[in-house]
């Protein structure tokens, strides 16, 4: 094992299968560090959605179940009912959380189910070829908005702000970005602690980069991420 990988990572599944430059890897590294810091590796169960998220199905040396699209939240809500002493994490993309699985996400927040949802927002359905997602901002080109996303398909979808409106007041809700890994890790730790210490719901949206579908190089990817951060404010919500 190298000195930089989180201890909770599964070494046999590395190098990982995400595209070169993918933001998922940054987010999963910080999640690994967060779990290490909390000493939670043997006490955590991770649910994984489909889409690019599914590539994390064997990413960690942690009990993991990869579910159907949008169904990771209810699976982990159920798991937590059976095993309240364990930490239940649900990992998904913006399509899984804000489109097909939104109903379950809102209701888990509304009921204050003690699970932690981590949602990677890269503004597109990346695994299926870069279609627009609810979070794609107005004017952005995708394979289903070839001349830029028309406002008639809605502006960029603000998930944490929506959840805040319906969630229990004890729920921890935040937005982070892969541009600031330390802050991302700290918000993940806070979110997990809200589950373990307050027996409450927590949610962290992670703004992320998708160089393949954005058709950006490293520099352009982080420039676009900076623009995203202007529309999608970072921090606790």
């Amino acid at each position: 094992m190298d000195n930089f990988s989180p201890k909770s990572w599964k070494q046999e599944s590395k190098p990982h299968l995400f595209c070169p430059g993918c933001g998922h890897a940054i987010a999963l590294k910080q999640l690994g560090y967060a779990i290490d810091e909390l000493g939670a590796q043997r006490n955590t169960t991770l649910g994984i959605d489909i889409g690019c998220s599914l590539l994390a199905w064997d990413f960690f040396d942690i009990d993991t179940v990869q579910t159907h699209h949008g169904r990771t939240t209810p699976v982990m809500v159920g798991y937590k009912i059976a095993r309240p002493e364990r930490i239940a994490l649900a990992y998904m993309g913006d399509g899984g959380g804000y489109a097909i699985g939104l109903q379950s996400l809102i209701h888990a927040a509304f009921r204050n189910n003690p699970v932690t949802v981590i949602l990677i927002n890269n503004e597109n359905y990346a695994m299926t070829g870069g279609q627009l997602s609810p979070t794609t901002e107005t004017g952005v080109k995708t394979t289903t908005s070839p001349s830029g996303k028309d406002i008639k398909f809605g502006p960029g979808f603000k998930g944490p702000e929506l959840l805040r409106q319906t969630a229990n007041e004890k729920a921890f809700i935040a937005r982070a970005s892969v541009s600031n890994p330390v802050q991302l890790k700290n918000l993940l730790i806070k979110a997990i602690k809200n589950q373990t210490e307050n027996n409450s719901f927590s949610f962290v949206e992670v703004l992320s980069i998708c160089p393949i579908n954005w058709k950006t190089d490293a520099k352009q990817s982080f420039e676009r991420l900076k623009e995203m951060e202007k529309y999608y404010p970072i921090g606790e919500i």
Partner: protein
Amino acid sequence: MEDKKLFITGNEAAVLGAIDAGAQVMFGYPITPASEILQGWVAKADLSSAKAEENKNLQYLQTEDEIAAGFGVLGVVLGGKKAFTASAGPGHILLQDSLAMAENLRLPFVGIMMQRGGPSTGTVNFSQQEVSLAAFGGNGDGLRIVYSASSVRELYELVIQAFNDAWQYRFPAIVLGDGYLGKTRSTVSLKKPGKLISSYPILEEKTQSTNLRNCYSSEESFGEVLKKNIADWNKNKSVIAKSENFQTDGAEILIVAHGLVASAAKEAVANLSLENIKIGLFRPITLNPLDSIALKEAAKKAKKIFIIESALNQLARIIKYELAGLPIEFIEIAKPAEGFTPEEIVNRIKNT
């Protein structure tokens, strides 16, 4: 074990079956004619209720939809406890999402489906139109155990059987009933189950982690998983399959029917026998897998087989597949979403 005599509905019997099977969590979304199962479970679980079961630690969640109910069941069983849901018709359709995952990952999902007619509100009390859905509804190969109950007492017993089979063989299990069965109140003596199959954590929580997936990098690697699942199914299906044979010895006319239709058919067979007609009833208790050995035995002397159901050829497809090639005349009597009286069956048999 002492039998207890009770005056209860089918839906109440289903709740008692789940409790006696060791179920600890129910997920549900209200839907006629299965709502009383959710209500009945909540009454047992709510410790302030007079009907609460003591020291059972029963839990429940009324979910945002049936999709979440089904996946909630999967979450609980992954954690090692017995869980179930109950639904009907349109809800049963939404549950196919989680059933497909249960089938592929071999998760012991248990569902009680009280069939109703057609889409949307349709009719809310009766049909047998959910047979194909229960047995073959997913984007898999139908490795699900499907039972059909024909009495209140049997509903109780099959719910227990479903939990035992699901946890022993690790295939999802569905108990079919209908609204009339669910709402009929009758005096029954329930035999407490003998041995129960214990639940255990499926995400194993060993020193090395378990990573379960529904994603494969090649047709071959997925094919290997499916081959193993199918081999397990084939190995166990004759043990899982159950049927009732009523006067089938030497029967020249055989009726095949399930659920409440089989109850009417049984009465018809009894009446026709009084007229020295050599007629019997084969009643599949499991629709999938089918008790094909018993069916072939029952059909040995049969010249005509009447397949009677409140659906269009859903049972018939299962039966004819098993008996393909035999020199038997099949007569399918299908009345989708409508019931049968014994008299009607007697008349149809006599006039065919």
